[in-house]
């Protein structure tokens, strides 16, 4: 990932627009013509009126009418062209911004992700940027077109009467000043509104994801009540933001209206002094209205613009968020097996309560370690540290003899495979689920063989579209099958260190035994750490480590510990054997 300084706020958009310079200038050129052509209209209408008053022949009047028609239509046609070009541009810019946001969010640490739901990220990566693209595809052009229009009006009206031109300039300046002043006041309120919406959608996403949990526990009312609360919060913030945001609109509109009334008064005065024709008064009046007409178009986009500013700000904030895990540069050697080592590691998930407490642990390359201890004793954390999903505050974590902090995370994680109890399946094809969207490149034969190896042969045979079958949720495979799939996923990556974190806990004993047999073959020659509650799963590991409340209390060869009547492992074995015997 390129480590460039993220530009803040509005500078962000400029940074993304810069590469589009040529497209932007072409667009601007067309826009200038499209905006200036219709300005002939009021002049032609003025001529029409003067011609009528002075008794010009009707074919001359008809010609002026036709001229009006042609210039207006040509202007509209060009407008459409501008829209087409600008929409293309906006999507290019928006998508590259989305891509960067997605890339950045992917790089953030799990601690950060713990505080941000997937729904929130949809808002950040897509919703906010939607506002930004809507803004840049329409509102920016409306603003720019407006500026061109105003300039054109000022020049043409100056030809009619310089005082009128000044009056229009003053009106526009006053209206714009009011708008900008109030707009700036409104931004924090729009920000607040977007935050509230983000919470609303984040909550909805979670509730919809946990619908069965809600229903079966009779918690529907609770979820609905929260939607009520979030909606009420949105109502309040939306109105609060409207007061500021649309107050500017109302103020500017009033200024423009006053400007055109004064223009009419000025025209009347000049006309009575014989300095202006009636047609020119009409043209000037039309011009003074013309500069306010597009204001409406801008105003329609103004809410979008303010949302876009707020969205851009949040995008900049997201891009400025630094991952607690800073990527190293070293590459991990391609050895078949890797040593895993924890040196004096003390670690807590930022809460102050250490989950691991001064742990020293070495798993030599090519050996297997069984990690046992009651829930919450820190077993899973060992795996997470080795895969560098978290960084330890105290001590060092080494894989293949290298401090994980020195390693490029991709290089590390390609060689460290983790299968957890929480299987993360994607709503994508079986192939995508196995290769994690193509992160592992393998041919279909290998994929099928691996599925067979983990015991999913019959499941695979039932797939309607083979590897292209779309997995669409829990209906398509049971939790146990999902675990086998996750296991296949890891094996495909050919890791040098495999961590099985309760990887077989959702399997029935028969299937588990088959899997253990298969895995033994597949893990041969690789380093492995196996975390399991069922001690039978650990029958064939080389060594055992026992964790108790974050401390490594026992570590030794499995056989020796199992023999030693005083060892904790032996005690655990005995306890589970009693349980199993009672069970038979």
């Amino acid at each position: 990932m390129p480590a460039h300084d993220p530009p803040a706020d509005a500078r962000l958009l400029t940074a993304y627009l810069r590469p589009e310079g040529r497209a932007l200038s072409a667009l601007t050129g067309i826009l200038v013509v499209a905006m200036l052509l219709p300005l002939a209209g009021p002049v032609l209408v003025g001529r029409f009126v003067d011609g009528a008053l002075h008794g010009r022949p009707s074919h001359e009047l008809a010609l002026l009418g036709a001229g009006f028609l042609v210039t207006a239509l040509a202007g509209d046609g060009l407008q459409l062209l501008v829209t087409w070009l600008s929409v293309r541009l906006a999507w290019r810019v928006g998508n590259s911004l989305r891509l960067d946001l997605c890339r950045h969010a992917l790089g953030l640490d799990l601690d950060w992700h713990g505080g941000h739901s997937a729904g929130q990220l949809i808002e950040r990566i897509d919703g906010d940027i939607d506002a930004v693209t809507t803004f840049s595809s329409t509102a920016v052009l409306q603003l720019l077109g407006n500026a061109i229009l105003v300039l054109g009006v000022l020049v043409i009206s100056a030809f009619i009467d310089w005082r009128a031109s000044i009056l229009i300039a003053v009106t526009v300046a006053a209206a714009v000043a009011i708008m900008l002043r109030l707009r700036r006041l409104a931004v924090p309120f729009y920000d607040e509104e977007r935050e509230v919406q983000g919470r609303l959608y984040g909550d909805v996403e979670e509730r919809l994801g946990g619908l069965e949990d809600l229903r079966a526990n009779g918690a529907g009312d609770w979820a609905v009540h929260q939607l009520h609360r979030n909606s009420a919060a949105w109502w309040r913030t939306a109105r609060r933001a409207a007061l500021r945001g649309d107050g500017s609109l109302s103020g500017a509109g009033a200024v423009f209206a006053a400007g055109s009334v004064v223009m009419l008064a000025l025209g009347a005065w000049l006309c009575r002094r014989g300095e202006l024709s009636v047609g020119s008064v009409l043209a000037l009046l039309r011009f003074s209205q013309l500069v306010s007409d597009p204001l409406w178009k801008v105003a329609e986009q103004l809410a979008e613009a303010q949302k876009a500013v707020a969205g851009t700000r949040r995008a900049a904030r997201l891009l400025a968020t630094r991952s607690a895990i800073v990527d190293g540069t070293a590459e991990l050697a391609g050895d078949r097996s890797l040593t895993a080592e924890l040196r004096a590691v003390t670690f807590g998930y930022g809460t102050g309560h250490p989950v691991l407490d001064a742990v020293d642990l070495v798993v030599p390359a090519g050996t297997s370690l069984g990690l046992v201890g009651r829930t919450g004793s820190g077993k899973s954390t060992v795996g997470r540290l080795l895969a560098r999903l978290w960084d330890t505050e105290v001590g060092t974590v080494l894989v293949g003899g290298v401090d994980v902090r020195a390693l490029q995370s991709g290089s590390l994680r390609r060689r460290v495979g983790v299968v957890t109890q929480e299987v993360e399946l994607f709503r994508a094809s079986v192939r995508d689920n196995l290769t994690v969207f193509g992160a592992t490149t393998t041919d279909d034969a290998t994929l099928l063989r691996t599925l067979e190896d983990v015991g999913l042969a019959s499941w695979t045979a039932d797939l309607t579209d083979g590897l292209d079958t779309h997995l669409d949720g829990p209906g398509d495979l049971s939790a146990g099958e999902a675990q086998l799939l996750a296991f296949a996923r890891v094996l495909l990556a050919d890791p040098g260190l495999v961590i099985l974190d309760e990887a077989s806990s959702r399997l029935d004993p028969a299937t588990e035994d088959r899997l253990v047999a298969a895995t033994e073959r597949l893990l041969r020659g690789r380093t492995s750490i196996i975390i399991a509650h069922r001690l039978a799963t650990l029958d064939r590991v080389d060594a055992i480590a026992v964790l108790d409340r974050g401390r490594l209390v026992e570590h030794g060869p499995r056989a020796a510990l199992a023999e030693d009547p005083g060892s904790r492992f032996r005690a655990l074995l005995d306890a589970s054997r009693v349980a199993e015997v009672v069970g038979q």
Partner: protein
Amino acid sequence: MTTTSIPTDTAGAATSTATGTASSTRFAWRMLKADPLAWLFSLSMWVVFFTMPIGSGLLIRSVVDRLPHAPGASIWWFLVALGACELARWAILLPAIIQWHGAFVLWHTIPRLNALTSLVADPGPVTGRLPGSPGEAVSRFRDDARDLALVLDVWLDLVAAFAATGVGLVVLAVVSPVGAIAVAFPIVIVLGIGQSLGSRLRRWRLAERQATARVTGFIGDVFGGIAAVKVGAAEAAVLDRFERLGHDRAAAARKDQVGTQLSQVLGGITANAGLGLALLLVAPAVRRGDLDAGDIALFTTYATTVGGLPRITARWAAFQRQGDVSAARFARLMADGDADSASQRVTTWLRTGPPVAEPIALPAPPDRTGSDRFHQLTVRDLHVRLDDGEQLTGIDLTLVRGELVVVTGPVGAGKSILVRALLGLIPRDAGTVTWNGTVVDDLSTWFVPPRVSYLPQVPRLFSEPLDDTILLGSDRSGLERALRLACLDDDLDEMPDGRATLVGPKGVRLSGGQVQRAAAARAFVRRPELLVVDDLSSALDVATETRLWDGLFDAAGGDLTVLAISHRPRVLARADQVVELRDGRISPP
């Protein structure tokens, strides 16, 4: 029970339901009726705002008419009146817009509340009603709700513009009937073009929506499973896919946006054409002196007002068609598949916020009577088919109060499907379920607390303080007991804020075992008559698990009925009845 099978192909379903019916109009109309005052208040302001330029135009005409000749001072009074009229117009805009924003939120909220209420509470399984991923589902609540709110919004513009245009055209017709016809003519043309453009616009919109849903669904999926992405070092591959999806979506969105813009620009073109046409046609009348400068001024000012109508009409047509798609998609979220249920009147509490929710108080088990008190549950000849074939065949099962019934069997045998079908979470094709001898028709609303609590195999916790995600609105009184029974009390001591600790999405801050035990506490706190447990112990070590089951049975004093899925010998040993499933059938002992 009859379950209509719902096509899983979202695209097909949306199209087939959306065609032919003006459902977004009906949808919006029903929302309007839900709170007519909000809409009518906005409308009255809008009508005033739109029609005031008609008065201004007449005042301008009076001024212009008096410009060349009439030397009197009378024109200044007209100018004062004109100024007052214009300023008043802008002064009413601000309150109108603030009120409108509230109404706009209301129109979003009505279908959202109806859909969520139906999803969490209406009878029948929810599978098939929700789109694939929660991320896609969010786009229903976000984008589709917005499209429908916009229909009501565009009606405001439409009615107000029609009022202004009607008055304007009448005034113009009095001045020059030919000119009035010339100005009105383009509206007819635009409506014709809009009609022929309509189906294409709708197709483009649908394609854009699907492409967007794929993108949001992908983001939701990827960040929902961020750990797997990281562990798999799949960041680059994910970005690749994201870029490709974004590319496809941009292509669809370009068509959609340019199409929408086209219909709007057409409106603009015809407005200008109207004025040009009028000038051409009235030229002889002007030449004859039938029309004077003031009348031409009237035409130019009214052209803007009347010219707005085609634009708004085009927008209305586009929004209405886009709303049709959204209304159909909302209908699919509802239990009865009817858009009317999504648009029905509902109490919203927007102004004040909802009243503090009364905690759900469940009577203690000994006090329960009638159907709330459990004696016996029987399942007869249960069949379940899902998309990919027969999942369960002819399941018979009987549970009596105080029993522990354990379902066991190999992976994919249908164990979870059995309990989920029993709870009504997925549809069954055949089978009778009786509770205390009474046949239960809708399982999903029957098998809820205080009768039943359910602990899923992969529980979902919500991003809330731990106690809230356990209670989910129920009474706090049983919390201590539930936490103790779920063996969570030790863990709580180690959490930074104890039971008020914020649990991250998907419980990232909790270990797998803690998530499962929190979900167990969630089921226990309801003190159900029948506890349904799908593989409680998969994340627990033997000691914790033993402690948990022992505690549970001790606390119940023999009066606990459990239907559990488990492989643990320890649990099987306790069982009064073991049901072994194999390939969706009960295998004989």
